[in-house]
């Protein structure tokens, strides 16, 4: 077993060797600019881009003409929110999104607020789910966009996108979905989900970093955005800039592999995830699952380990790459805003660990992670005054803490 073990797939994934193989010729002999319309180098590049566009469109059941390439999901989110806001500013100035969205959506919305737009940030239930009725009630005659994520990057909760999509259609409001964590992991069909714009990227699905896409529905309704970049008018004018052909080829190949293997991979990963969860639960008491028990991504596990702090845990299991909701390293010292939005107490938010299983994780690795997590939590609990107090029967919630 090779160490360190990578189990942080919500952050990024390694390039699948098959993807890399497909990309390589486009760095060297097939280096043409896909916008060069008058020689074979350009034709070759353009053909490769269009094949990839088709592969990507197939995975989300879209038409290839409905995809715009961007630098990644952050850019797609920005283009969707700011681009719709600007394009439809005469129609209205209200946007609906949620408190648990990715920063790329929330901060785009905040930036629009500074420019005079009004934004509703919906709250979620204790499992992280959006209530579609809340979306319905938030819609006004000024609402121009709803932006709700498919699956959450921390807790893996999968939102009722199709229901929200139906409401958006009924109310004739454009619907953007940040599907970065869901595409390639769970089935995504832009028509059944009823989304009009959708953001996602390659590097979460074993493709290269630096390439993403924005899906823009072409009809019923036609979704348009005001471009953010001025230039050569690439991507039907929505996103200027020479296309990174090797990255696009890799994105396409990654989507093709996902389409073929997603079903079996999801089964394998959810089995590994259950093994991980059960193994940890067997060895430790006072652990809490964050996120929805069933409506969640197959490869996501997020657990709070009471009485120990997340960053200290990660330090103890430093040969395993994981992530924590403890923002002990952030400037604000605030724990995860996603967990806080679920109503998870700050103490348990500080104690949370996110496990993101991936294509290359093995059962042997999962078993090693289980043993290391148990060992580290037990060691830190021995060191924890909170654990000592809890064992003495003291109700930690009732203690008057000398706040710092």
């Amino acid at each position, binding site marked *: 077993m090779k160490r360190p073990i990578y189990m942080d797939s919500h952050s990024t994934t390694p390039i699948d060797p098959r993807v890399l193989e497909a990309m390589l010729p486009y760095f060297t002999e097939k280096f043409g600019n896909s916008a060069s319309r008058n020689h074979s180098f350009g034709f070759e590049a353009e053909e490769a881009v269009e094949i990839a566009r088709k592969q990507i469109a197939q995975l989300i059941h879209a038409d290839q003409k409905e995809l715009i390439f961007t630098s990644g999901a952050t850019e797609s989110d920005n283009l969707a929110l700011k681009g719709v806001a600007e394009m439809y500013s005469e129609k209205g100035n209200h946007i609906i999104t949620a408190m648990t969205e990715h920063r790329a959506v929330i901060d785009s919305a905040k930036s629009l607020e500074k420019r005079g737009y009004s934004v509703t940030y919906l709250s979620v239930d204790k499992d992280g789910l959006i209530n579609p009725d809340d979306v319905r009630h938030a819609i006004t005659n000024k609402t121009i966009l709803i932006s709700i994520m498919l699956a959450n990057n921390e807790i893996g909760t999968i939102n009722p996108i199709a229901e929200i999509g139906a409401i958006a259609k009924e109310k004739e409001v454009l619907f953007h979905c940040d599907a970065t964590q869901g595409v390639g992991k769970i089935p995504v069909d832009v028509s059944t989900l009823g989304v009009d714009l959708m953001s996602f990227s390659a590097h979460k699905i074993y493709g290269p970093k630096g390439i993403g896409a924005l899906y823009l529905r072409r009809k019923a309704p036609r979704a348009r955005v005001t471009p953010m970049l001025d230039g050569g008018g690439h991507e039907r004018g929505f996103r200027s800039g020479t296309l990174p052909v090797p990255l696009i080829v890799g994105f396409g190949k990654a989507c093709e592999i996902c389409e073929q293997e997603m079903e079996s991979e999801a089964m394998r990963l959810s089995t590994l995830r259950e093994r991980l969860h059960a193994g940890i639960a067997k060895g430790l008491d006072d652990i809490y699952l964050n996120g929805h028990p069933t409506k969640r991504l197959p490869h996501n596990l997020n657990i709070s380990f009471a009485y120990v702090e997340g960053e*200290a845990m990660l330090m103890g299991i430093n040969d395993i790459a994981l992530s924590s909701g403890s923002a002990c390293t952030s400037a604000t010292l605030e724990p995860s805003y996603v967990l806080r939005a679920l109503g998870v107490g700050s103490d348990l938010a500080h104690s949370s660990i996110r496990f993101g299983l991936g294509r290359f994780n093995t059962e042997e690795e999962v078993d090693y992670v289980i043993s290391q997590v148990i060992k580290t939590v037990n060691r830190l609990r021995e060191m*924890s005054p909170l654990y000592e107090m809890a064992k003495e029967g003291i109700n930690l919630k009732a203690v008057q803490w000398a706040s*710092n």
Partner: protein
Amino acid sequence: MAYSDKVTDHYNNPRNMGSFPKNEENVGTGMVGAPECGDVMKLQVKVEDEVIVDAKFKTFGCGSAIASSSLATEWLKGKTVEQAYDIKNTEIVKELALPPVKIHCSVLAEDAIKAAIADYRKKTPQEEPEAKDTE
């Protein structure tokens, strides 16, 4: 974020981790921080003739918080109560090479030292031992 070697060493080999019985006459206990803030430190000193003969800690917090309290117990041992009062968080920052975002861990350690001594003083007033009866 990379940890300094000293932080890693204290984290892996904490010095004086554990607890004294709180009720003992010559034990002072300081508990600072709050679970909501992600840091709670318990620091205890055992005092004989105004000298800290032993110290123990338990900490809920990140590696730097654990290291700060572990280091504090090391420094406390052998010091008089008066000398212990002079331990400054900046010395802890320097010794452990804490980055700016972790300075609050050292502040917490200094607070814990002061709280432990204050608790000891409350139990065993030094200047006027008779005062205990009048309270």
